[in-house]
């Protein structure tokens, strides 16, 4: 089976730029919105796991918001946004035809070389980078299974935005999919020895995935989020503790080896 080309392979990563992108479509799924923009250069440059810094189209908001790249189709790039604060709420209110300032692609992306079987684990808005990843893996013939955890059926409506053949769902209240956490779900699904885990979600979920993977000697990668200011590696504002000290989510990440992240 062919390895998947990606940032971990030798091919040089395309660089970031400032893109002025027209919004082509906005779809709402419960508290989430999928915002699709036209950005040919961005679409050509992006790798799964990378992110962009997007300007909230309202001068009350100073800082850009970091957003994972959810999907790339031809000239279009889609971002997944959860209305959490005033800034992200404004972004979910974007309409077709609006112009957004998008800086990117940024960050390292998922290392894909040598992956033959993948288990994608997402919690809440953490599912955001996993469609693009699944697309790239599937195109290379990698067997992909995804396990998503949501709080309730309203959040779980987001699953409808995904096109992954083997996608399993859990909700904490049991109102959609299996009752329980995403860890209960992956425990039920299981993982063969050579499976590589790709996880993104809240800290508590990632810590649990880390333990679950360690117990089974499974290799994995986590995509992290953090309060971010520059997104460029300048300000050192977005660090997370790792086994080799603080690492910048925007520069050394957002994808780090699962076992290197330090959870208290």
């Amino acid at each position, binding site marked *: 089976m062919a390895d998947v080309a990606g940032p971990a392979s030798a091919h040089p990563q395309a660089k970031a730029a400032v893109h002025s992108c027209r919004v082509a479509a906005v779809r709402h799924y419960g508290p989430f919105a999928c915002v699709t923009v036209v950005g040919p250069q961005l679409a050509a440059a992006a790798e799964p796991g990378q992110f962009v810094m997007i*300007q909230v189209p309202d001068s009350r908001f100073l800082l850009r918001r970091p957003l994972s790249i959810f999907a790339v189709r031809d000239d279009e790039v889609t971002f997944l946004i959860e209305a959490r604060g005033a800034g992200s709420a404004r972004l979910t209110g974007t309409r077709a035809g609006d112009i957004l300032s998008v800086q990117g692609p940024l960050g390292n992306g998922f290392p894909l070389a040598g992956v033959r079987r993948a288990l994608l684990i997402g919690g809440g808005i953490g599912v955001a980078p996993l469609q693009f990843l699944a697309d790239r893996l599937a195109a290379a013939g990698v067997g992909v299974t995804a396990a998503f955890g949501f709080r309730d059926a309203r959040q779980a409506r987001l699953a409808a935005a995904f096109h992954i053949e083997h996608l399993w769902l859990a909700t904490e209240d049991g109102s959609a999919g299996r009752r329980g956490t995403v860890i209960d779900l992956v425990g039920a699904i299981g993982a063969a020895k050579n499976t590589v885990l790709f996880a993104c979600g809240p800290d508590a979920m990632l810590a649990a995935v880390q333990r679950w993977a360690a117990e089974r000697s499974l290799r994995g990668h986590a995509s992290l989020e953090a309060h971010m200011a520059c997104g460029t590696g300048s300000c050192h504002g977005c660090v997370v503790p790792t086994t080799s000290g603080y690492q910048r989510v925007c*520069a050394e990440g957002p994808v780090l080896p699962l076992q290197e992240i330090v959870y208290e």
Partner: protein
Amino acid sequence: MSKAPDLRVMLGPIELRHPVIDASGTFDVLEATARYERDFLTDFPFAAYVPKTVTREPRPGNPPPRVAETPSGMINAIGLANPGVAAALADLPRLAPLRAPVIVSVGGTTVEDYVAVVDAYEAALAAAAAGAAPNVVGYELNVSCPNVRSGCLSIGTDAHETEQLVAAVRPRTRRFLVTKLTPNVTDVVAIGRAALAAGSDGLSLINTLKAMVLDPATLTPLLGNRTGGLCGPAIKPLALRMVSELAEALDAPIIGMGGVISGRDVLEFIACGATAVAVGAANFTAIDAPDRIVAELRAEMRQRGLAKLSEVRGRALDRRPPAVTGS
């Protein structure tokens, strides 16, 4: 139509092609060039480069979260995270292609720390082969970081300690020496006067205002350091007031900063007596923010019929300062 306005300024002996420089820690030219298509080293938007503060030893910085947005601004508590002076000096050759003069920002907790960093730079620059280092024209002594537990801010809030620090560093270098002042004091003029008396060539201000934000869910401090430094447009009026107080009382070139996000903001700081103006938080709003700000400044000058920035410098002051800044 009048001819194109002249944006050049003289910061002491340093000629700047325009007055806009970066505030330390808000723009890393090597990081930006590594990630963006644009080569910021050869297409540098600022008139001078002030890198992130360097300390004698590596500093991991404060626990996260370190940044948060606030109304019309942001708060940060990075904690002078940096790899230390040895690592900074190892990077000097990579900065050699930079098409702008460099003002090295120096931090520490004791007077000896600051002296050690300046000595290390002087030795490295003296030993560097031609073309193997950038054009380091000066140092900015950061005595105003609100986010480290000892030294630094405690030096910058005390006139006597500031004077002792500057007096210790002054004989170690012939380069331009700037002291970066904190707004977290009752009388900024007293601190600035002490720095100048000890041999500082210029002053820069303001560093951030010590502040706090809460996590709305838990009603406990959001930042890992509990407190942080407030910056962005919210602090501009306070910065203008402090810059003007210094310019009215003291005779030295001033680098004004605090919430600059537009060309008009730059003009306002110059009207308050600044010679150069630093852009900080705005660098986080867009990677090309400094280009926009300089373009806006040029347009503002043309619109107002200004040929040179000296025509407005000090206009907002009670008394115009002596012409210390040329241009």
